[in-house]
């Protein structure tokens, strides 16, 4: 039985100013994987992630989610398909004036009728689920606080809860820990990893930190100048590949933790 949850084929993105952010990229992702995408700024990481749920329109290529092509979808069909892919952002992308509870419940909007969503008519079942989730990630004391009043780490936890509420098959994480301190970073990565594992959700995460990538990833994809230069399990990531990805000697890179040298 085909276990592929996401298939990207020959995707290319050329910006109007001529910059080729993604150059004929293809890859497959199987259900349950924890993929980490690494690469320098400008390598196309963010463009790649955002093109998977059509936040960015691709110049050419195809992206299939659970067998369904997403790039030609519009309006209602697009929204229905987007439900399957939750997203966590570097800057959290919450509605700061609303409560934590309201922000988490936003994850259900894709499943509600237009009117119910507009007036925030969430079912009691959904509300209970939200509270359970918030307790699980230790935000139970903050459910009625304004989202804007929380710390960075707490805001990201709200973002994760919102993503989980969507009952997604895939979670896309665009540099989820880039704005967080080392302690919050570990908490967030652990939460994402464990929640995904528990619920059988596939994850695709953009990261700057190679050591974090190696620690959590089942597979690492290395991007450089819009092309894939590495697509293998974390153990096989060696210094030479890293140098290719970042286009500089390993001495010029700030990497923590031990790496396998070849």
């Amino acid at each position: 039985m085909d276990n592929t949850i996401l298939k990207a084929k020959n995707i290319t993105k050329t910006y109007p100013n001529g910059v080729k952010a993604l150059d004929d990229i293809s890859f497959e992702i199987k259900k349950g994987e924890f993929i980490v995408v690494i690469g320098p700024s400008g390598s196309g990481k963010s463009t790649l992630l955002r093109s998977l749920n059509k936040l960015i329109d691709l110049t050419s290529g195809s992206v299939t989610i659970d067998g369904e092509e997403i790039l030609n979808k519009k309006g209602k069909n697009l929204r229905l398909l987007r439900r399957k892919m939750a997203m966590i952002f570097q800057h959290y992308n919450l509605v700061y004036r609303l409560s934590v509870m309201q922000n988490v419940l936003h994850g259900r909007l894709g499943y509600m009728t237009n009117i119910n969503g507009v007036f925030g008519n969430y079912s009691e079942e959904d509300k209970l689920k939200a509270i359970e989730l918030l307790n699980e990630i230790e935000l139970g004391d903050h459910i009625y606080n304004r989202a804007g009043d929380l710390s960075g780490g707490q805001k990201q936890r709200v973002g994760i809860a919102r993503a989980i509420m969507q009952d997604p098959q895939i979670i896309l994480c665009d540099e989820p820990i880039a704005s967080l301190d080392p302690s919050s970073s570990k908490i967030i990565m652990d939460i994402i990893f464990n929640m995904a594992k528990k619920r059988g959700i596939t994850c695709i995460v953009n990261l700057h930190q190679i050591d974090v990538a190696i620690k959590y990833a089942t597979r690492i994809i290395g991007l450089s100048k819009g092309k894939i230069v590495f697509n293998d399990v974390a153990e096989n990531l060696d210094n030479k590949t890293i140098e290719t990805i970042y286009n500089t000697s390993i001495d010029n890179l700030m990497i923590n933790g031990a790496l396998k040298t070849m």
Partner: protein
Amino acid sequence: MLKINKISIINQREKKLFTYFGIVVLVLFVGATYLTKFNPLEVLLNSNEVWKFIIKDFLPPTLTKPVGIFDAIFITICLAISSTFIAGIFAIITAMFGSEYISPFPKVSKIIRGVATFLRNIPPLVWAFILFSSLGIGTGVGFVALVISTFAFMTRAFIESIDEVSKDSTEGLLVVGATFSQRVFQGIIPSCMQDFISWFLYCIEVNIRASTIVGMVGGGGIGLVLFSYLKSFKYQTAAGIILIISATIIGVDLLTGFLRKKVMENE
């Protein structure tokens, strides 16, 4: 002896640009003064005429029929508040389509923005003239003039608020699969409500003054009353009315200023 140059603190090129700009402005000013034969010092030179008029004709201010005047003030205030309200409702709706991040028709948003920017530069007085010439004078027409000018201003202000405040949160709602209305009511409105209310109060303040002026050219209210007293040379009563108008405007300014502070404080 060593000549020490003073160290510059801005880019040399910028400094040159500023100097040239200053010279051009000066030349334009002198040229304009000469060509229009308007001497800006004339006001100062002939100020004793102005003072004579003020002391002899305007003062002391009197009010012989206060009742009619308070009716007129009431009309003016109502004009200001109601026009701001109506304009505000239209502006919020239009702004949703005018902001390129949230608009379901991003291409149209540029047009809406452009039109709003163009329209908002037309003062309410000009709108009043246009409408009075075509539709005749009256409170209703004055009301429409105020609505149009306020609407243009508010649309532009709201669009800027929306763009500034809700770009991130809108993206968050986009990926959960929310519809346009859901994104608006669950994202934009909560995020921008404070700004909207603040702009709304600001426009009421502006419109009290605009309403007086529009009133003068035919919109009714206290502006028209003032105008008719001036035209019939009843300067002392006119002075009294001017004082009342000033008091009203100051009162509204203080009230809206206080409310705006309260709204912004409620973080």
